[in-house]
């Protein structure tokens, strides 16, 4: 009986350890595709337009069910990344005054993003 209890205890300990390890693996923040594309677009933007200094663009996805999404969606981020610095300057991206409100942003919306077509 004692042996059976010991075995059961060991089994439960291993199970708890495995569950803890799984929770650690599942609990990481993760890198989502839209966050990555947004960050890469911001990097390209700041490389082409160093006068911007910092951009008021959030690339964070968080909240329950992804309630908070990056200001630059993937298509806009792709567009910005594929444009050369000369093209971005020609589009007026380096001037914050030409930026437009984020399309999916509900009023009152303060977030503005660069135009890209």
């Amino acid at each position: 009986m004692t042996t059976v209890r010991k075995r059961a205890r060991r089994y439960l300990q291993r199970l708890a350890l495995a569950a803890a390890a799984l929770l650690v693996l599942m609990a990481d923040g993760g890198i989502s595709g839209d966050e990555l594309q947004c960050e890469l677009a911001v990097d390209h933007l700041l490389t082409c337009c160093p006068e911007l200094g910092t951009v008021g663009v959030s690339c964070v996805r968080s909240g329950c069910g992804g309630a908070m999404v990056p200001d630059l969606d993937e298509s806009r981020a792709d567009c910005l990344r594929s444009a050369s610095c000369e093209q971005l300057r020609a589009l007026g991206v380096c001037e914050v005054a030409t930026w437009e409100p984020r399309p999916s942003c509900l009023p009152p919306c303060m977030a503005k993003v660069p135009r890209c077509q």
Partner: protein
Amino acid sequence: MFAGEASSVAAAPLPNAPVASPAEAKSDPAPADDPPVVVEVQPSPRRARWFGTLRAGAAYRWALRESLVGGVFEGELGAQDHRLAGGVRLRVEAGKMRAGLPYQVVTIGPSLWLPPIADRLRVGMGLEAGAFLLSRRSDPGAVMWTVAWGGRLDAAVDLARVGTTGGVYFAVNVAAQALTAAPFPVTVVTGAAFGYRP
């Protein structure tokens, strides 16, 4: 890669040639003009000693469908006998994605070095788990991160002896890791490094 291997020692041509054992000495005394005797010195396989090494080098990584280039620093601590060496390896990699974002990878895991497969050439392997971190450009100081775990293969060739047991060596490696939450779930890394073992 590491010391303590079986070695052949050619005895010097002494006036009285070396003798393998006291028993032989009594039963078969060697004449003074015999050729030098080769004595096989076999260290005890049970004798384990500390094993430690440090490496620094460069790495190319493919992750998140992008190329990343960085520097690597690795340290291993464990035990060795005359054939095997193993222990725990800590690996720190830092660099920059070619597309621009800085990244860091920190892993830890068990490692094992096998007996030599050729003169001065050894291969090893290991498991590793840790974190892959990508710095944000929109929020300096913040990072995105995910868990990374996988395996690796190493090869090392001794370059020069340092002191009585130490040495400098050159090592290459290739590794594959799974990323638990990333746009592409696999990363592959290869690298080259110079190492030192005391």
